[in-house]
């Protein structure tokens, strides 16, 4: 079984390098966030999180994620279904367009919406005369978030769907199932873990997005701030402990995301073993 030939010290050297790196770049900053968050004690920590502006920011972040994630889920499943199961002209182009938000800087993503919906933008004057607010309001923040998290679900699903091939769907259709029925009873169950995985990643990015949202938010306290923007505001007001308390909520979200991710991976492995 043991076929490793390298000397012991190499093994320990590699392990310790990896551990030091991990500690320095991941554990230490994370510990710092929580250390600073509780610098003024539990009572202060809870108090800052109950501040009306902090609550408004959390609510905003949740609402934005609740709208952006389902929409990207629908798009992601549709796009990956089309790309993985069918051949059509322009497939490569569609694939690159899905990846576009990953390669564009979030600030640019924000400015795209300012150019489109801003008062000096293409649609701005019409929106203002009809009293519709998109930019510097919740719709703009949601749009920017959707743009940035656009590829998350599709990127997860395309490889899974491709590796599964078309046999099961073809079998279902030969047996007389309709396309819709095939999709719900054959395709979706096969990718359910991929979907969940995609949702988690998409959600984490949606809640954590700073750059694009910062451009379109207008930074109105209690109204258009998301949690990441709220962290920046508190920090700029020299309220370090409060800023880190809010940041710790985001860090907690990241940790929960990681746990959920590993839980799903474990379930998938178990499922594969049973098969």
């Amino acid at each position, binding site marked *: 079984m043991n076929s490793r030939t390298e000397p012991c010290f190499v093994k320990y050297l590699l392990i310790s390098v990896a551990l030091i790196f991990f500690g320095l770049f991941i554990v230490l900053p994370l510990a710092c966030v929580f250390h600073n968050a509780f610098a003024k004690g539990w009572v202060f920590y809870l108090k800052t999180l109950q501040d009306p502006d902090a609550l408004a920011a959390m609510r905003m972040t949740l609402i934005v994620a609740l709208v952006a994630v389902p929409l990207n889920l629908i798009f992601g499943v549709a796009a990956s279904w089309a790309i993985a199961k069918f051949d059509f002209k322009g497939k490569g182009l569609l694939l690159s367009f899905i990846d576009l938000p990953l390669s564009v800087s979030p600030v640019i993503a924000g400015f795209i919406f300012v150019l489109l919906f801003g008062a000096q933008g293409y649609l701005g004057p019409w929106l203002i005369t009809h009293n519709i607010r998109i930019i510097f309001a919740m719709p703009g923040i949601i749009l920017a978030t959707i743009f940035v998290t656009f590829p998350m679900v599709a990127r997860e699903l395309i490889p899974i769907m491709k590796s599964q091939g078309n046999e099961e769907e073809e079998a279902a259709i030969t047996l007389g199932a309709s396309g819709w029925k095939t999709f719900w009873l054959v395709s979706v169950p096969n990718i359910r873990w991929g979907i969940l995985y995609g949702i988690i990643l998409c959600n984490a990015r949606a809640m954590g997005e700073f750059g694009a949202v910062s451009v379109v938010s207008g930074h109105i*306290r209690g109204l258009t701030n998301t949690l990441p923007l709220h962290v920046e505001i508190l920090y700029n007001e*020299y309220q370090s402990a409060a800023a880190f308390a809010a940041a710790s909520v985001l860090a907690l979200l990241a940790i929960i995301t990681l746990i959920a991710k590993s839980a799903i991976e474990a379930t998938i492995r178990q499922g594969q073993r049973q098969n």
Partner: protein
Amino acid sequence: MKTGKIWVLVMAIILGLSMITPAMAQNKVTLLNVSYDPTRELYQAFNKAFADYWFKKTGSVVQVNQSHGGSGKQARAVIDGLDADVVTLALAYDIDAIAQKSGLLPKDWQVRLPNNSAPYTSTIVFLVRKGNPKNIKDWDDLVKPGVSVITPNPKTSGGARWNYLAAWGYALKKWNDDDSKAMEFVKALFKNVPVLDSGARGSTTTFVERKIGDVLIAWENEAYLVVNQLGQGEYEIITPSLSILAEPSVALLDANVDRHHARQIAQAYLEYLYSPQGQEIAAQNYYRPRLQAVAAKYASHFPKVDLITVDKVFGGWQKAQKTHFADKGTFDQIYQVN
């Protein structure tokens, strides 16, 4: 199914959160004040006082929402559609820009309120570390080699433009209005600037939290805030021999307040800044008040300093902006060569 359970959980969290937040009162009026960076503390106090005053006077509840950032950036956001009722920015030029590019208010907005629509003034001072280790006394000390100077980017920050013009004005006085000497002086000063933040608050953070630089060129009010709230005894304020009279301006945006049916309250809000109560709050937050009575009361806060004005030395903000901060202005020439 498991996903169903997750959704129920998420919905429950949202419901819980919305219950914690108080329901919106029915006859509550809201105003949006788009302001610049260092006024956070001032307007926090002022909005509370104004809400009390307005409630006693009219019986209706007013909530003033705030947005803060670099002055130029904030003006840009208002031009792009940030729905402000009033703007309280660092300099008249930024409000001029709103008037020119968006037409939300008339171009002669500055004559609509007393004192050039600037209810309080400020000036530019130096903040140094305890004991003043580099012995900085005046503008000349900022161009010495080895002195690290922190100031924000004049392209985006109103405060930075005041800093820039104050330095330029000092050099003009020293070399008898020789513009090329002044440019050399300011260029030497910017050689000593390691980082340009986009707003005054960012620069203060760089100086205080990141501990970069020997001297911060800052608003007087910002310098006091640092000394009083952040580091008792850790910093010292140095008032140079000559500085600039900064007139942060305020205006209501006609098109927006009319659309919101909020003209009356927006006007009252700005006028309250000129009232004894408003002036008192300004002075408490280290803005120099216009009212003599209040100024006398807080005289010890504000050392006498030789103040130049943009109108007299630079021929007004329009001209100053064009010469110094527009594309290919003196700042671009200075910073490019660096």
